[in-house]
């Protein structure tokens, strides 16, 4: 067998991805610029580490240097206990988010809610092959620490959970708990957040049959990478089965959703609709 892993990246692969996130560090030792293959988004090389100037390095490098006590990690803004309790409050008490996840950090070019006037339209970068490219996590600076002025300034945004929150949070708690503000409190809050959000994810399963239909979909905006990783098998399995049953069992009794949708579309398109033919289609699914 060429490849033993199931379809869709597994939790350990997600952890591998999240190690590409940039974090802020305070070096204790000088380290020259190194040209690396997999360092983003800083132009393919590490920043010069010169104590006591803050620098951004990928998490895997930060963990490697931290283990050798060559740096200290500055925890990201969202990982402070106040930020986490603020997010937890939104997750549990805000009525707009009683069934949804708290809003994620905005992508570059994405307008905030209610701010339709902003004119900075999203301009994709071009890859070397000329394809449009929009950077996303783990290649956005969602886990770097804010400068002190930014953290207290009036214009700062409310804290939000980044895409790799669970992985980055746990890895920092494990490897750099002495650099965090209040590790015990942080650990508790992360655990609470995880429980609240897992419950929401389970609730979301009820509406999965929309994703089983052609052209349909279920929104999970704000979901974390690891949360997707845990649910992937369950979600795809449920949708598979819903599709199978709606085409097979329900197709015999009455009209399945998929079939009804197809009929509707076929009528819209003024197409002849052959019942038996479509039944044959559903059987193939």
């Amino acid at each position, binding site marked *: 067998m060429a490849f033993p892993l199931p379809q869709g990246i597994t939790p350990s692969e997600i952890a591998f991805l999240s190690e590409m996130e940039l974090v802020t560090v305070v070096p204790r030792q000088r380290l020259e610029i190194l040209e690396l293959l997999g360092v983003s988004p800083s132009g393919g090389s590490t920043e010069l580490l010169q104590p006591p100037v803050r620098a951004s390095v990928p998490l895997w490098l930060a963990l*490697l240097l931290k283990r050798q006590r060559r740096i200290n990690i500055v925890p990201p803004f969202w990982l402070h206990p106040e930020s986490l309790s603020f997010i937890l409050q939104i997750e549990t008490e805000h009525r707009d988010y009683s069934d949804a996840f708290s809003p994620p950090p905005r992508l570059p070019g994405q307008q905030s809610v209610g701010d339709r006037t902003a004119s900075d339209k999203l301009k994709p970068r071009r890859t070397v092959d000329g394809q449009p490219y929009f950077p996303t996590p783990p290649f956005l600076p969602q886990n770097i620490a804010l400068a002190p002025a930014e953290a207290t300034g009036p214009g700062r945004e409310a804290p939000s959970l980044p895409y790799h929150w669970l992985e980055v949070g746990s890895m920092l708690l494990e490897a750099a708990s002495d650099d965090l503000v209040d590790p015990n409190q942080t650990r508790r809050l992360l655990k609470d957040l995880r429980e609240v959000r897992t419950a929401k994810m389970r609730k979301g399963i009820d509406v999965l049959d929309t994703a089983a239909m052609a052209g349909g979909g279920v929104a999970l905006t704000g979901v974390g990478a690891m949360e997707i990783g845990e649910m992937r098998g369950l979600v795809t399995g449920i949708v598979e089965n819903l599709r199978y049953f709606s085409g097979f069992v329900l197709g015999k009794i009455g009209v399945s959703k998929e079939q009804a949708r197809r009929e509707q579309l076929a009528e819209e398109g003024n197409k002849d609709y052959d019942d038996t033919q479509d039944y044959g289609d559903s059987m193939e699914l």
Partner: protein
Amino acid sequence: MDIDDIDDILASIDPENSSDTELDHQQLTRFWVAERAVSDLLPWPGPLMDRLMERVSKQIELIEDLTASSFDTSNNQNAMLNLKLSILQTDLSRTQYLIRSLLRQRLAKLTRYSMHYLILISPPSQHPSQSSSSQQQTRPEDTIPDPFSSSSPESDDFSPLSPKEAEFLHAHQTLLASHYGSSFLGSFPPQLRRLDDNAGGTSMVQAPDSKQVVFIRCLAEEVTVVIPADDAIGVEHYGTTMRIGEVWVARWEGVKRAWERGEVEIL
């Protein structure tokens, strides 16, 4: 169109050549995640992989040079050099892991749906027709289409496989067919020996299921899930609309073209 020309034009537009490494790395990572998540084989990003492989071999040379120089330095410098080497090597293994995992995933898909992809990449005229071969001599190998039989460059544009993958696939399927033939298919009546039989309206060629759902993030302002045209519906229709930054669960066939345009990302 010549790829080198495009590259030259782009290089002249974009002065930030130093960020190429970074962008290529991001692209590789995203492509790997996508390849791992969807059921069918994604188009082989040839130029990207060529650049990456070149960089990997350069990096290996650099590491070898540094290792060699570590023998003739003093102790103090040596500690620093060892640190650098371990960082460079970690970085190299991470990139190599991505490439290896990507290739193995593609091989797994190729061997799983080997007949489907062989038929896909072979020019249609070369498919042996059901009646042409003499019934008595039908061997399972004869039903394998040959992707290299025609030299028309058009077929390359449609092929999601790299040339090496195509070569592997053909060799793999030929071996498999001759094995089937000698172990059991040879004792079957000739008309049952085909590997691409579709008698009775059921094709025995397994194709990847494009109706599976995937997790996606919308990257453009708005992307609409499409319902592709099929037998029942002659034209394609549009379903749910996603907005920038949103994460959705939707059918792969409905967002495939948006993915090709770079407007959605697979998670």
